[in-house]
């Protein structure tokens, strides 16, 4: 982890293929002090040369002065080398301690979740539930259409489209979850959810074992089970989607992180496009940038908009989510194939889509950026500029569980450090807040960020005749 104290707000960087975990301040200090040790040798050489003069004007006092300077230069060299070596040791020790602590917490959390589930599974009530609940629930819903319809009607009556701005949270809850400790707890809980369910025993454990054989584990497995259970009642039930091109307009492709975040489609009302695909020609090559917005509808009953809770749960489960399929359709409509150079950018739920498509291996991915997205469990491709941008007090990225990416650059910032928490729901998740972080990223001098910025924006550098094509994704039927 690297802390870049040269900017405000303070960004924390990690990943990027590095194995050493240390603060940027420590690394910078070790380098500077090491440099002092090296350069002071040159000063010593100069002093020795000057002291060897046989000129008659050389006085005893002068020689004594130079002798003293020579001793001080030697002393400076020794001290600089000592400090630099101790700092390097400290960085190594800190890295090891940090890795051990993270591993210990992770293992401990998994074990605790398993033990809790196991204990619950021994209680008669839960034991019966584990044994009969899953098949019983499915059987009941399939044999009793009325019950199924009642459950569906219950959810459907709660809302039509449940847009992000329709969600109101009590301020005490808002303040509780806009906190790095709370989001970390969410991260741990999500990552350990499968262990809890496994410890529960019975059919959940059997389902998990079956999913594990297919390579689906962790929160993806739990999301898959949730999706399976609830879809019987029409809740979180996936179905076909279609996309409609809504607009084509000339554009200057984003040239920095602020412009990139300002490029996300503004969603909120049904009918507004959630997908933007920029087409540009660079050095005679046609390139594409796919920019995907966040969740439009939070109702667990799928409605019109394909960017909904159903898509989100399916995407986390690694199932063919409506939102992912919609972006694939839009890309196909644009003529993007496996050879077309493309970058993926996504905010929130759009980040899951961007990460999923980039990780799929189905495209010629040249870069990927996710913003405030739960993508800890999706391994982004290596060898291309990739950044995961998240606020440590935003609980949404925490829903992706513990971060499993080590190659991608992970940029973290506490959005409301020493600031009052606003009253709107999930303030640290809002795109306006992320734009502030983007501004800090653009002004950051840390080498990793500069390298990322240079590499990612080189993709569209020199683009001419660029256009943005917008698509609206909706569910059919």
């Amino acid at each position, binding site marked *: 982890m690297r802390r870049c104290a040269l900017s405000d707000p303070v960004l924390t960087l990690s990943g990027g293929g590095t194995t050493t975990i240390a603060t940027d301040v420590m690394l910078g200090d070790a380098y500077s002090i090491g440099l002092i040790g090296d350069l002071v040798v040159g000063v010593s050489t*100069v002093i020795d040369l000057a002291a060897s003069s046989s*000129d008659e004007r*050389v006085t005893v006092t002068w020689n004594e002065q130079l002798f003293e*300077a020579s001793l001080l230069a030697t002393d400076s060299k020794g001290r600089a080398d000592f*400090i630099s070596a101790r700092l390097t040791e400290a960085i190594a020790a800190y890295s090891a301690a940090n890795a051990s602590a993270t591993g210990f917490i992770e293992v401990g959390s998994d074990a605790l979740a398993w033990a809790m589930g196991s204990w619950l599974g021994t209680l008669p009530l839960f034991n019966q539930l584990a044994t009969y609940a899953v098949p019983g629930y499915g059987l009941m819903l399939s044999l009793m259409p009325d019950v199924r319809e009642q459950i569906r009607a219950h959810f459907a009556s709660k809302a039509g489209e449940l847009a992000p701005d329709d969600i109101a949270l009590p301020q005490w809850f808002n303040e509780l979850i806009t906190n790095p400790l709370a989001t970390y707890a969410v991260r741990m809980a999500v990552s350990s959810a499968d262990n809890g369910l496994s410890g529960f025993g019975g059919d959940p454990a059997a389902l998990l074992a079956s999913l594990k054989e297919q390579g689906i584990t962790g929160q993806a497995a739990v999301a898959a089970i949730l999706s399976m259970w609830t879809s019987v009642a029409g809740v979180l039930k996936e179905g076909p989607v279609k996309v409609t091109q809504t607009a084509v307009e000339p554009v200057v492709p984003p040239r920095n992180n602020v412009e990139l975040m300002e490029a996300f489609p503004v969603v909120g009302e049904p009918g507004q496009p959630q997908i933007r695909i920029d087409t540009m020609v660079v050095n005679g090559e046609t390139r594409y940038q796919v920019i995907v917005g966040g969740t439009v509808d939070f109702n667990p009953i799928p409605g019109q908009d394909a960017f909904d809770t159903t898509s989100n749960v399916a995407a986390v489960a690694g199932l063919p989510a409506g939102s992912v399929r919609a972006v694939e359709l839009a890309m196909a409509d644009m003529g993007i194939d496996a050879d077309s150079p493309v970058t993926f950018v996504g905010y929130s739920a759009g980040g899951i889509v961007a990460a999923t498509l980039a990780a799929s291996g189905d495209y010629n991915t040249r870069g990927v950026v996710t913003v405030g997205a739960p993508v800890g469990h999706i391994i982004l491709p290596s060898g291309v500029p990739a950044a995961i941008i998240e606020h440590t007090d935003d609980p949404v990225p925490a829903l992706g569980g513990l971060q499993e990416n080590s190659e991608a650059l992970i940029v973290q910032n506490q959005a409301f450090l020493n600031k009052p928490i606003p009253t709107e729901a999930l303030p640290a998740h809002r795109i306006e807040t992320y734009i502030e972080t983007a501004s800090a990223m653009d002004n950051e001098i840390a080498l990793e960020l500069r390298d990322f910025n240079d590499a990612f924006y080189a993709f569209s550098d020199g683009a001419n005749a660029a256009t943005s094509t917008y698509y609206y994704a909706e569910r059919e039927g």
Partner: protein
Amino acid sequence: MEFEYQKALIDGAVQNVDLLVSLLPSIPDATAWDGLAKGNYATELLLLSNCLTLLRESLAAAATLMDAAVCPV
């Protein structure tokens, strides 16, 4: 070696030490760093800073003596 050339070397060395002093990191919050640096990092840094300051003063004094030798008052 020419005396004037040697003087130029010393003048250059003074400037070099100025550069080294400018490279010194600021002294951090000792509480946060002591445990990590396995020693009192802040104190070590202060000692190095003092050492470089004395080195600069010593070289500057030598340069002044050389000035006096080249252009006796």
